[in-house]
């Protein structure tokens, strides 16, 4: 159960040649010393929990599975769509109980270090999955590393960008803003000239990060083990967000259902600017009232006084550590197929989500995809989040803070101090505070 067989190694490299060489510009390690093994000889039954949107994204993944089965007829994939919001807890419960966990999971970037620290994931080092690790975007791959090992491969990456309604922006005669100050005037102009709202600032922790990063702030300093969430930069950043709301440039946001309200208003052309990620592209495509993708403008998030920065997000493929070793080879093949540059390009074409492989961006259809090329600079300048097991717990206190400051008008400094205290008491007790 614990030892790798020579056959597996041979098989892996052959399959690598099969699936990757076709599209990737780089030379893959060639399978010259191995005679071709028949993919049909691999047989296993694998369960995959897909956490993507079941309606918009799920069918495209199921198509990919069909293609996979054409090549590997004896690997049966049990496709299960698990709602993103439940998947983290569901997986942890199942993994702790050692029953009911899927073989393969599509895990959000912040989950991987957490699951890995609990021993729930296979480390993938030296496997065929990481043979071409240099082809992956470094920022996206970073989220898979924990304690010197790599536990997953990035499936899709994302970041926040400034999305706008082209028609409204043209009607108001404003240029696409590059700084928060420009966004404020642009939003006010839109409101004055077209009568619809200019901007919707979503009062949630994750969505305040571009404001904090913009002033050069961060949540924690992992190198020095320090909590820096209540820094002067973060206070300044939050006050910019607050001013957008107070000045009327942004709709006064609601404390509940804010994200949904933001999307509804945007799709119904009732607000011109929002900050959101590429995962909504498929949704926008399907919104005829909006005018489809032709009407969707995408620009990097506006800059603060230090830089323009948005948090990196996305999802990774990981393998549950309870999977019997006999099935491991099949799991590796499956992930390799699903995450090949061609598959990533297919997902990009159909869903507008961003590939994590550099070589996928060289595929012609991806190159000519306007949405992808608009997001490319966004990803390149995206900011790494602290990849520690506690990373997912940073957002609870941050959400509370965002509501206090942006909805209830409380003092930014006082709220951030409370967040720092919470981090110290409950999230990272070993870290120093300011």
């Amino acid at each position, binding site marked *: 159960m*614990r*030892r*790798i067989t020579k056959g597996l190694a041979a098989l892996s490299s052959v399959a690598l040649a099969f699936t990757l060489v076709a599209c990737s510009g780089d030379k893959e390690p060639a399978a010259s010393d191995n005679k071709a093994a028949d993919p049909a000889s691999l047989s296993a039954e694998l369960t995959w929990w897909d956490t993507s949107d079941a309606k918009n994204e799920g069918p495209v993944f199921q198509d990919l599975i069909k293609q996979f089965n054409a090549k590997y007829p004896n690997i049966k994939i049990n496709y299960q769509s698990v709602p993103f919001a439940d998947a983290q*807890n569901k997986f*942890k419960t199942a993994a*702790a109980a050692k029953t009911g966990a899927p073989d393969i999971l599509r895990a959000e970037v912040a989950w991987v270090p*957490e699951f*890995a*620290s*609990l*021993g729930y994931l*296979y*480390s*993938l*080092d*030296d*496997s065929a*999955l990481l043979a071409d690790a240099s082809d992956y975007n470094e920022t996206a791959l970073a989220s898979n590393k924990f304690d010197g*090992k790599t536990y997953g491969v990035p499936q899709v990456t994302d970041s926040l960008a400034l999305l706008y309604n082209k028609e409204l922006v043209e009607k108001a005669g404003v240029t696409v803003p590059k700084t928060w100050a420009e966004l404020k005037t642009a939003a006010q102009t839109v409101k004055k000239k077209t009568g619809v709202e200019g901007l919707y600032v979503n009062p949630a922790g994750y969505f305040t990060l571009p404001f904090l990063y913009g002033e050069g702030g961060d949540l924690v300093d992992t190198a020095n083990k320090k909590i820096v969430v209540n820094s002067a930069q973060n206070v300044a950043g939050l006050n910019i967000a607050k001013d957008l709301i107070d000045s009327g440039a942004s*709709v*006064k946001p*609601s*404390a*509940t*259902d804010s994200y949904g*309200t933001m999307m*509804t*208003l945007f799709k119904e052309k009732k607000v011109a600017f929002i900050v959101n990620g590429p995962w909504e592209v498929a949704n926008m495509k399907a919104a005829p009232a909006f005018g489809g993708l032709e009407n969707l403008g995408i620009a990097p998030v506006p800059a603060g006084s230090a830089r323009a920065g948005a948090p990196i997000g996305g999802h990774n493929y990981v*393998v549950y*550590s309870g999977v019997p*070793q006999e099935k*491991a080879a099949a*799991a*590796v093949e499956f992930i390799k197929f699903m995450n090949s540059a061609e598959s990533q390009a297919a997902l990009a074409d159909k869903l507008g989500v961003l590939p994590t492989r550099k070589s996928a961006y060289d595929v012609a259809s991806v190159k000519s995809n306007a949405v992808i090329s608009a997001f490319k600079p966004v990803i390149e300048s995206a900011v790494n989040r602290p990849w520690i*097991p*506690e990373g*997912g*717990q940073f957002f*609870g206190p941050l959400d*509370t*803070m965002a*509501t*206090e400051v942006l*909805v*209830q008008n409380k003092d930014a400094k006082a709220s951030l101090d409370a967040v720092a205290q919470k981090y110290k*008491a*409950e*999230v990272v007790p070993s870290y120093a505070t300011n």
Partner: protein
Amino acid sequence: MSTVTAGATPRSSTLRRNWDKHWAAWAMVVPVVAVLAVLIFYPLVNGIWLTFTNQTEANQLAEICTKSITGGEVCKENPNAWSFVGLDNYVNVLTGKIGEFWQWTGTTLIWTVAGVAFHYGLGLGLAVMIHREMRFRGFYRVLLVLPWAVPAFISAFAWKFLFNEQLGLVNSLLNAVGIDSVAWFADKWTALFVAVITNIWLGVPFMMVALLGGLQSIPEELYESAEIDGATPWQRFRNITLPGLRPVSMTVILLGTIWTFNMFPIIFLVTEGQPAGATEILVTGAFRAAFEGIRNYSLASTYGVLILSILLIFSVFYRRVLRKQGEVW
């Protein structure tokens, strides 16, 4: 247990005879006792034990093993394995170092009192109204029980959407009559108001049905003779209806209190604890504290024990009050 009248016999033989006579009854009780022990007693004791440790999902194992997909497994001693911490959990929770215990308790009390008062008041009013002979009585009864039949989470989402600040019906209606939109979920009290309204909508049918049953058990003759004696409707209500309903009322109020106290879905779904955790009640706050992020079993148990203690104290107190008033319950 039935006693045997064998005053002078030694204890063992009393037991013996008791067994001989009632063995079948004992044998039938055993499964129940066993099930109770497994389902209630063991988890309870285990839960109480957990509160004296610092066990979480991350430190429950003494050893964490990492398997490599290419074979091999490395096991490392968990550097932060759990330990016995005495009363630390209780101190942390009660002093507010972790969570907002006292704020949640305060909100829970307001939530419970408001909920039960309106449930009972409205339930009684409606029960009295549809107890009388009238046309379409059956139709009204069905209509009034309807909220009960709809799954709670559907009602919760419906009410939440009605009060949505940008898209909701309530603000549209307010705007139509010239009143500005209200930011319902931006303030603790308006958010709590929406939650209480939802809870009333959900809880009144139960009270109404229970009280209607109680009303039907009050003999009609009492009202007739009172009427002959010239009692006003208010006097009849106070002196016949209310005392007649007392046994039912006491039970449903106790049940309603415990249910509302632990009513998780409404707060969790309607206000989501917003704004900024201000409408969190004990059960929802405890859930978030214990199960969001790395799951904290010891903290969850601590909240559980505290909530159980509050309800136990309340029930004991309530029973004592009832006994003083001569109720046998």
